[in-house]
């Protein structure tokens, strides 16, 4: 994949350092981090830093937590892994691979998309609730967080959840922390659910369908009991840029499982089969939004609505934004849209409000990220979220403004 040079084009790389708070704070363990947070000065949490340009720019001195590293407990038979927050995903995936297991939500690698380098970490991945193509079958990142230790905005160390897969003791704080972008507490240690890695996989290709035809076909396939683990559609111009260098649009359905089972289901569904290695490579590209890269000079949005509405949503996006490039993942439930650089937030948020769903700006220069990155809330929900934020972080110390203009 083409590497985007973050150094020559400042807007995609790490933000220019600001004023007095420019120096990263010293690294340290949980007590030391708690002490720093307790001083009440705003901090921006950073581990690998690979997702830092996603979300609104946070205010505060960078707090480097990369010392929080290492797998603490992993017994494959328990299907649970506990690791410190800044443990690189690569280290975790490698430990899991030795036991033929994996993180089933298929964490996507968005480094090229976000123009960052470095190592994605477990904590960062969970904190932004980033899930890949298997999300439609295995659930989102948030569905895999079982428990955690964390430091709140006043410097108190706390924990919730557990290290077992089935637990309803107390509120499900894990769901609240997953996707909170570090605004409620600094996650220091996470226990996640892991699952067996599928024995084998194949992808079925279907060529030349329209968005409407492909969405109907993806729905029909997902409504069979054949356990499709990923379903995407790429229009011809996007499909041409993939490893498959296709000349027409492509609908892709992935099947995973024991070889006998995959062969049987593939036979039932038809299409052209890809071998396992090609299948892996193509879904890695779809997860990392590779067909829309490089993002230079463009804004990349993630649009989620009810899957069956995907063709209508895509038509509206293409008609509204000249030069829009789009493709579908999650059986139609996810429309990736790359737009020529512009402030599209108001229009897209209104559109997704009308469709039912949400639009999130994923990659853009800082100028556009300062606005509404996330789908606006109703007044009642916004007030509730603000109360939650102030409950955990009354001084707005943690990742201030990363998710909301108000906090």
């Amino acid at each position, binding site marked *: 994949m083409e590497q985007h040079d973050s150094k020559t084009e400042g807007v995609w790389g790490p933000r220019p350092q600001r004023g007095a708070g420019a120096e990263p704070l010293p690294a340290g363990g949980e007590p030391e981090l708690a002490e720093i947070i307790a001083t009440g000065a705003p901090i921006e949490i950073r581990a690998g830093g690979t997702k830092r340009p996603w979300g609104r720019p946070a205010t505060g001195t960078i707090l480097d937590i990369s010392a929080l590293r290492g797998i603490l407990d992993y017994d*494959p038979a328990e*299907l649970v892994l506990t690791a410190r927050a800044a443990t690189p995903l690569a280290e975790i995936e490698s430990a899991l691979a030795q036991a033929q297991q994996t993180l089933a939500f298929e964490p996507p690698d968005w480094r090229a998309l976000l123009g960052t380098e470095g190592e994605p970490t477990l904590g960062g991945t969970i904190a932004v609730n980033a899930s890949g193509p298997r999300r439609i079958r295995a659930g989102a990142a948030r569905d895999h967080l079982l428990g955690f230790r964390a430091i709140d905005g006043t410097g108190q160390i706390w924990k919730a959840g557990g290290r077992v897969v089935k637990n*309803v*003791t107390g509120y499900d704080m894990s769901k609240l922390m997953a996707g909170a972008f570090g605004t409620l507490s600094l996650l220091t240690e996470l226990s996640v659910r892991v699952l*067996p890695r599928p024995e084998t996989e194949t992808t079925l290709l279907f060529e030349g369908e329209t968005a409407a035809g492909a969405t109907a076909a993806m729905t029909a396939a997902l409504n069979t009991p054949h356990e499709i683990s990923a379903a995407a559609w790429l229009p011809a111009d996007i499909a041409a840029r993939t490893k498959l260098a296709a000349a027409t649009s492509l609908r892709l359905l992935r099947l995973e499982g024991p070889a006998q089972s995959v062969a049987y289901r593939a036979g039932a569904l038809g299409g052209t089969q890809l071998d396992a290695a090609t299948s892996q490579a193509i879904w890695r590209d779809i997860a990392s939004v590779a067909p829309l890269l490089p993002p230079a000079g463009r804004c990349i949005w993630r649009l989620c609505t009810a899957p069956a509405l995907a063709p209508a949503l895509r038509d509206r996006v293409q008609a509204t934004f000249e030069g829009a490039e789009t493709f579908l993942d999650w059986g139609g439930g996810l429309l990736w849209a790359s737009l020529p650089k512009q402030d599209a937030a108001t229009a897209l948020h209104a559109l997704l409000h009308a469709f039912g769903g949400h639009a999130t700006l994923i990659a853009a220069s800082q100028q556009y990220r300062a606005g509404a990155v996330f789908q606006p809330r109703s007044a009642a*929900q916004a007030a509730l*979220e603000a109360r939650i934020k102030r409950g955990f972080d009354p001084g707005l110390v943690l990742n201030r403004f990363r998710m909301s203009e108000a906090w």
Partner: protein
Amino acid sequence: MLKMPEPLAETLARRAEIVAALRAIVPGEGTIDSETGRRAYECDGLTAYRALPLAVVLPETRAQIVDILRACHRMGVRVVPRGAGTSLSGGALPLEDAVLLGLGKFQRILDIDLENRCVVAEPGVTNLAITHAVQDRGFYYAPDPSSQIACTIGGNVAENSGGVHCLKYGLTTNNVIGIEMVTIEGEVIRLGGKHYDAGGLDLLGAMVGSEGLLGVVTEVTVRILPKPPCARALLLGFASVRDASETVAAVIGAGIIPGGMEMMDRPATKAAEDFVHAGYPLDADAVLIVELDGCGPEVDHLADRVQSIAETHHATSCRVSQSEQERLLFWAGRKAAFPAVGRISPDYYCMDGTIPRRRLAEVLERMQQMEAEYGLRCANVFHAGDGNLHPLVLYDANVPGELDRAEEFGAAILRLCVEVGGVLTGEHGVGVEKRDLMGTMFSKTDLDQQMRLKCAFDPPGLLNPGKVFPELCRCAELGRVHVHGGKTRFPELERF
């Protein structure tokens, strides 16, 4: 017995006024005032605890729910939400100074959307009714708590209910994609929908499993799944719990996630066999039922692999279901394990801890020692795949002191679960039952954080008080949300 918060005398004194306010919103039979009428709601599935609610109100529209909550908020009256009342942890236990808000009249399925694989239902629809509504189209709703014929989807959201298929298909939280809820202040909030994820803070995730303390759910959107075309079950006998446990670990280690994997110990097996005559091996110390579902070739392949793993781990008997009828027969005993135990003991107390599976043999041995210590017998059924234990403590409520001993035995079991790295409850909820054990798992700081969530949703602490937390929420004392000029806003809140 656990202590419930003292009823507020001031509220009790205003009962007539409160009933009149409710009646103005829900006229006629929808507001229940008479003692006999209220008596029907005095307990849920945790029958050892009973209380007569201040009044019962059974609204039929969302607008009425909004008005009821607004009125209660205005009058400072506590509210206990209730679905079908099947909670085993006392989640719907009434309070003498609280309005019981019954959602049983919300029984409509609002939308069956096969294109988006979801169903939108009112909260009083039963769990099984959702599957019934879509099964002729080849779909089902995956979470299947054993009370599914009676329990409601709204209650499932409150309790984050599980079932025997959780390991593969997840709990309620993994299968609910949207809700509409009303806050204690009467604000209607929609979270999630037919789309994936919601962006922003995951309030939907926080609501599921919040045991009626954060808001009242008025609509639920659930994911439905195509029914697997084939399912087969293996009935395996073992001479020791250890062999059975090692088999479970080996099955998972081989990369197999069964649709269900259940274990029963010897007393539970015997009770079940005497009840349903499923052909369970009575000479076994532990029986495993392993169900595999999927396409035919996959199920046949995995059934062979599980059988060979079981044999390697010294299974003393192995039967693979050869027909749907036989598969259901294997399950019949397990599904009837609770009533079966009810036949051999006047009363039983069902516990619900989860442990790391590797500690199972040790936990069961310690529980056997406790049987002697407490002078009570215990039968065990176990969701072996996910480590969720259901010890059934056998007692006779008519024998003075036995209930107290059963509760003490149960508490000791749960403390043991936490000690070995597990948790207090896998699927039944904390409710009243495990409330005072929360401190064995969480520090005061940990519980304070949970209370902060509660305080954001329900600042006056009116929703379902006395549940989950060992003391009433101290929103003011937590000192972050509602302290004005250093004054404690709720000095009347008691500690218990």
